[in-house]
């Protein structure tokens, strides 16, 4: 009967868009449960079509819904009660939802009367047909979602840890510390936090060693706890957070939790702290455990849960007073282990390339033993990038030949797109061969791996405290790592692990990897310990204490950097650096940059130096990339190249938006790194602001631009939608790889548009959506491009003066990381240029550095120099390199270098400058010797440097001190001083034309460098008490080790062995001061001092005003007068130091 009716309905066509939109207007209005235009609305109409087809089919086959008469009521058994079910079966009785449409029908009725549209509008039959379809759709989507929920719950129940839920909660209630040990796949990371939540715990922190894990776990747990769009589960990683006040469970990195403890000593914000993956023994994790151990004494009700693989559990339990351990079995399939040691003739010696034969045999073996229909990929562990490319090359030849393999490299220096490929699917009959560093051991998990081949080797970074150098060395792995690698074969089914070493090798491996705290430089750690008042780092109870020499080295380094004073206490800059979650060196740069008008470029450089280089190694050899990159290069140094690159990128972003992706590809740039830089940069800026080091700009949005704001708002809404859509699709779109993948090297990955999509149901539209550059979307959401462009334009086209100053700041930040070009570099090939640091001789520049392709800019120009002896050149153009890293791989390499004028930079930043009596010979930091030709010039340059440094220090301290006190900034006052200082610094850097020679001291010279302490009776020291008065603030006294006179913290006068007597009259020469009317014979020292304290009249007034302004002139030279008691005339006088000098001299001469 339905069909009869339908035939009657006039011109109603379910397929016509007009008809459909009429129904949309009735049922799917803006406020309805389903809105027209929403994804669900699209789904509905797709469902509707299926539903109609199904109905028609039913009608045709004659088995209509209501066809059969029910027997239900007929043979009722006695004793059962009547359920009162309808006699006639109808599928709609099975739906527990109804759509209330009286208002719709009323509307229909009204429009009936009002217009003649009746003929084309839906009739009551259509409405009811439609409503029925809608009910079925609602029922269908309910079933679908509930099905997912049920599946999720089933999976949770099947996790090995599920049975331990109650036991875990019980242990946590009874004990302050609990250790949960379970292997891969037991579900501890996702489930334990949920168990705690459901038991009513709130304020839970769960730390992870990796940022990426924080994000994915927060997503997973919030999904599993059906709270995906709430905020109860969040994550917080460096500079990014989803945390809100209602967050109950927070995933965060270990480092970040440490920062929080730094702010909130008793960590009151958390009730439970879970430290996950403690067995990985990262530096931060070991430290965190130590800190938490102390904290538990203050917070007896804090609950601590350590989660670990089943490795070395006793260590953790014992460290926490024999905390109870709960062991959960893992869920691994059986794995067959095959030992296949490499025969001696195929073992590579140190210098040779790896022999690929043992690896090829594994591929062949798999091909012979396992039919291609049986799926399963191979994961091959090698020690490093060079090894990977050697084996990749050989395997690729085999793969091209057999057409049964797709070879893919995996390591952290690959582009992300390239890394991502390992997750794609191989076509039928083909296996992936993933050749990876130990990144795939824990950080990256690839499904579908059935075979593992383990070389047993790993390259690990270690720190050589003697050479102050990082070293990347190859080692045998530990048994724990070996097992971890093996386990990767048994995640989805039974697997095979080939070990390219013998069982006896395996047994000889160390049980566990060396914890990071034993391998790395401890600078940041010690700094943080100092700021947390944890006492002497040497007596802190670590779970596995680092060697004390390592702690000593770090303390010394921090002293050199000015973060600790001589008593190993934090300096004011040290206090600030400890608060900044960045490397000490980077933090220093930021602080220095904030003092001068170089914040914007410094922010960029600091960010650039904190992320991996955006320049892809693989494109190094590509001539097109090299040409396209050329305009970005700066021969001042790599930080400037990075600065140019970033600026150019922002410009492209502003002009072309998403076009930047192509721009980057053409230049061999990994755009992801630039996105990281822009985020980091912004966060640095916020950090500086929050520490009062940067005036917050008044960004009052101009009220008149309402239209513009609305426009931006609409755009943001759109962007948010795009982001949500993207997140929805994420994960469900693994591509199918092509056989040719990887054949033509790493660059082939860039044009992935041709790749087919896996899992057939994706249509064209999806592909278009996938093309949305999600990074661009996120970028636009996070940053205001035009604001950024403005900020960047400040740092574009730096004047040579600004450039010089920026270099100096970089150099001071990087100090003592300085390298001296070898004196014979001019006669060497470009590739053989050699440099020396204080602690390591013969280092080279990394091929990625701009100086490796352009070393001439570091040479002393021939025209400017005179050879004055063997290995000795007189010039005013000597340069040094300041560098960010010194890393030894096959050679010791310097990377991220910047060149600076040697004499000026050394005088302005070094910790120790020693001179002879007429200051023509300077020894810097006990390793660099500078010999100046003219005593007059030497004196002038030294004295200028000393007063510049004093002023710089004074302003820096003022800036730091002021911010710590939290006072309102006295910016206006000091701005003039800062401008003046930067002016003077620049002049000093650019226009000091002093001829000198620059060389390293020989070992012999170093041994006999200083005169050493002089006996009290020595005639030249008779005047010493008087001299102390010459240096206000500073306390000049004979240096007890070097001899001579320590004038400032960095400057020791007349301590070098060839020095003449301290005050021998022959050194006095007549001199007239340009600022006052002083004219008298002075020693160099006296003269320098006078210059430092005697300023032009105008400046003096300025300064006096300043010290009236509240801040007592600290240790600097600003306190011009002092109380002086003269023993000779027995009078109390108030004099400037120069006046004291004059006064004393008066007596001196008259006495003689």
């Amino acid at each position, binding site marked *: 009967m339905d069909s009869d009716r339908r035939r009657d309905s006039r011109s109603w066509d379910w397929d016509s868009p007009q008809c459909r939109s009429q129904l949309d207007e009735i049922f799917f209005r803006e406020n309805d449960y389903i809105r027209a235009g929403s994804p669900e609305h699209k789904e509905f109409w797709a469902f509707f079509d299926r539903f109609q087809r199904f109905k028609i089919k039913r009608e045709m086959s004659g088995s209509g819904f209501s066809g059969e008469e029910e027997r239900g*009521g007929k043979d009722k058994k006695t004793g059962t009660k009547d359920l009162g079910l309808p006699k006639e079966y109808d599928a709609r009785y099975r739906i527990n939802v109804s759509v209330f449409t009286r208002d719709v029908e009323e509307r229909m009725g009204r429009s009936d009367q009002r217009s003649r549209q009746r003929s084309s509008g839906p009739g009551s039959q259509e409405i009811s047909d439609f409503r029925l379809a809608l009910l079925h759709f609602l029922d269908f989507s309910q079933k679908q979602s509930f099905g997912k929920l049920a599946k999720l719950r089933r999976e949770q129940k099947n996790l090995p840890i599920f049975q331990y839920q109650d036991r875990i909660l019980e242990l946590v209630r009874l004990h302050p510390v609990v250790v949960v040990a379970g292997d891969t796949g037991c579900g501890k990371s996702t489930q334990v936090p949920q168990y705690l939540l459901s038991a009513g715990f709130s304020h839970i922190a769960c730390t992870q060693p990796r940022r990426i894990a924080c994000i994915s776990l927060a997503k997973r747990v919030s999904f599993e706890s059906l709270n995906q769009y709430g905020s109860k589960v969040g994550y917080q990683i460096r500079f990014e957070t989803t945390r809100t006040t209602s967050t109950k469970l927070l995933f965060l990195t270990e480092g970040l939790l440490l920062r929080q403890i730094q702010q909130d000593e008793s960590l009151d914000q958390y009730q439970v702290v879970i430290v996950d993956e403690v067995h990985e023994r990262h530096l931060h994790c070991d430290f965190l455990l130590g800190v938490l151990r102390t904290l538990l004494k203050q917070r007896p009700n804090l609950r601590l849960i350590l989660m670990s693989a089943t490795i070395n559990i006793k260590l953790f339990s014992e460290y926490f007073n024999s905390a109870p351990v709960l062991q959960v079995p893992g869920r691994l399939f059986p794995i067959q282990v095959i030992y296949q040691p490499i025969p001696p003739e195929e073992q590579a010696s140190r210098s040779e390339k790896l022999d690929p034969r043992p690896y090829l045999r594994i591929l062949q073996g798999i091909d012979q033993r396992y039919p291609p229909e049986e799926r399963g990929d191979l994961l091959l562990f090698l020690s490093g990038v060079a090894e990977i490319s050697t084996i990749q090359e050989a395997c690729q030849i085999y793969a091209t030949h057999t057409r049964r393999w797709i070879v893919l490299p995996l390591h952290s220096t690959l582009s992300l797109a390239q890394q991502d490929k390992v997750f794609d699917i191989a076509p039928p009959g083909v296996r992936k061969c993933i050749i990876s560093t130990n990144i795939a051991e824990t950080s990256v998990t690839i499904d579908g791996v059935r075979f593992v081949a383990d070389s047993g080797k790993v390259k690990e970074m270690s720190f050589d405290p003697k050479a102050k150098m990082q070293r990347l060395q190859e080692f045998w792995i530990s048994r724990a790592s070996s097992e971890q690698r093996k386990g990767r074969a048994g995640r989805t089914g039974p697997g095979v692990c080939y070990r390219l070493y013998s069982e006896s090798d395996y047994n000889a491996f160390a049980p566990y990897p060396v914890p990071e705290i034993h391998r790395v430089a401890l600078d940041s750690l010690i700094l943080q310990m100092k700021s947390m008042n944890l006492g002497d780092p040497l007596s802190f109870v670590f779970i596995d204490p680092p060697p004390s020499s390592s702690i000593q080295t770090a303390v010394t380094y921090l002293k050199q950097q000015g973060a600790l004073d001589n008593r190993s206490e934090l300096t004011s800059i040290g206090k600030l650096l400890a608060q900044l979650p960045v490397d000490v060196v980077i933090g220093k740069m930021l602080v220095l940059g904030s003092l001068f008008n170089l914040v914007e470029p410094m922010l960029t450089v600091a960010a650039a130096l904190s992320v991996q280089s955006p320049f892809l190694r693989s494109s190094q050899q590509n001539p097109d990339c090299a040409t396209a990159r050329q305009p970005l290069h700066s021969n001042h140094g790599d930080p400037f190249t990075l600065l140019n690159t970033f600026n150019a990128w922002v410009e492209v972003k502003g002009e072309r938006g998403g076009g930047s992706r192509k721009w980057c590809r053409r230049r061999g740039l990994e755009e992801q790194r630039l996105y990281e830089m822009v985020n980091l940069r912004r966060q640095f800026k916020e950090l500086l602001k929050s520490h009062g080091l940067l005036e917050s700009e008044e960004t009052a949005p101009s009220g008149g631009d309402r239209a513009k704001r609305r426009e931006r708002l609409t755009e943001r809404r759109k962007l948010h939608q795009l982001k949500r859509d993207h997140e929805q699709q994420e994960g469900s779109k693994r591509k199918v790889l092509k056989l040719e993948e990887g054949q033509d090297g790493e660059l082939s990955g860039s044009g992935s548009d041709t790749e087919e999509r896996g899992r057939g149901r994706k249509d064209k539209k999806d592909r278009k959506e996938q093309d949305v550059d999600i990074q661009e979307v996120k970028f636009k959401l996070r940053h205001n491009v035009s604001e950024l462009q403005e900020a960047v334009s400040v740092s574009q086209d730096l004047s040579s003066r600004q450039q010089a100053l920026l270099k100096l700041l970089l150099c001071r930040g990087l100090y003592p990381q300085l390298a001296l070009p070898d004196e014979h570099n001019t006669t060497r090939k470009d590739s053989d240029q050699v440099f020396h640091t204080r602690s390591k001789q013969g280092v080279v520049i990394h091929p990625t550095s701009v100086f490796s392709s352009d070393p001439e800019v570091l040479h002393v120009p021939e025209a400017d120099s005179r050879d004055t002896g063997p290995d000795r050149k007189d010039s005013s153009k000597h340069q040094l390199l300041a560098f960010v890293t010194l890393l030894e791989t096959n050679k010791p390499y310097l990377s991220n270098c910047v060149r600076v004028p040697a004499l000026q930079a050394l005088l302005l930043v070094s910790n120790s400058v020693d001179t002879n009596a007429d200051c023509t010979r300077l020894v810097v930091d006990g390793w660099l010797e500078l010999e100046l030709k003219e005593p007059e010039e030497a004196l002038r340059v030294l004295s200028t440097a000393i007063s510049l440094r004093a002023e710089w220090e004074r302003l820096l301290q003022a800036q730091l001190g002021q911010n710590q006190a939290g006072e309102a900034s006295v910016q206006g006052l000091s701005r003039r001083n800062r401008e003046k200082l930067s002016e003077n610094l620049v002049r000093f850097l650019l226009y000091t034309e002093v001829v000198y020679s620059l060389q390293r001291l020989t070992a012999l010279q170093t041994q006999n460098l200083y005169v050493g302490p002089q006996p009290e009776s020595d005639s030249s020291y008779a005047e010493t008490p008087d001299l102390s008065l010459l240096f206000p603030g500073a306390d000049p006294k004979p240096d007890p080790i070097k001899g001579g006179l320590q004038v400032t913290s960095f400057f020791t006068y007349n301590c070098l062995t060839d020095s003449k007597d301290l005050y021998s009259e022959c050194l006095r020469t007549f001199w007239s001061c340009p600022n006052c009317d002083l004219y008298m014979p002075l020693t160099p020292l006296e003269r320098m001092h006078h210059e430092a304290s005697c300023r032009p009249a105008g400046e003096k007034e300025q300064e006096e005003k300043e010290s009236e302004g509240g801040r007592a002139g600290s240790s600097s030279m600003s306190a011009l007068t002092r109380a002086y008691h003269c023993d000779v005339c027995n009078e109390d006088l108030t004099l400037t130091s120069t006046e004291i000098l004059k006064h004393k001299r008066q007596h001196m001469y008259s006495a003689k």
Partner: protein
Amino acid sequence: MDEAIETPQKTFTCQLCGLSSPFTYYGQKPPNTRAIVLLEECFVTKDPFSPEKDKFLVLGSTCSLCSLCVCVSSDCSLFYTKRFCMQCVNKHLDQFPQQIQAELTKKQSSKAAVS
């Protein structure tokens, strides 16, 4: 910080299969559903699988005969004008229409084959 342990969320648990999940609403008219009405009192939560905010998901309800709390899974309950737990359905199977009886027998036999 307030150290008191918060009261656990309201949780729905199926008394037949044990499936449990927090619910945000109990009744026939979940929030923001406009024209939609439920034909029974249900335990409802936000649909965690929908990208849209206001979608609801019915977790379960009580059996109209024995008041057992059951989830909407076809293993645990059946809705036919009213909610019936599977125990009650089996007890009164004869009163249900042929279609449903056939479906259930088919399901049972396939289940038996699996286990």
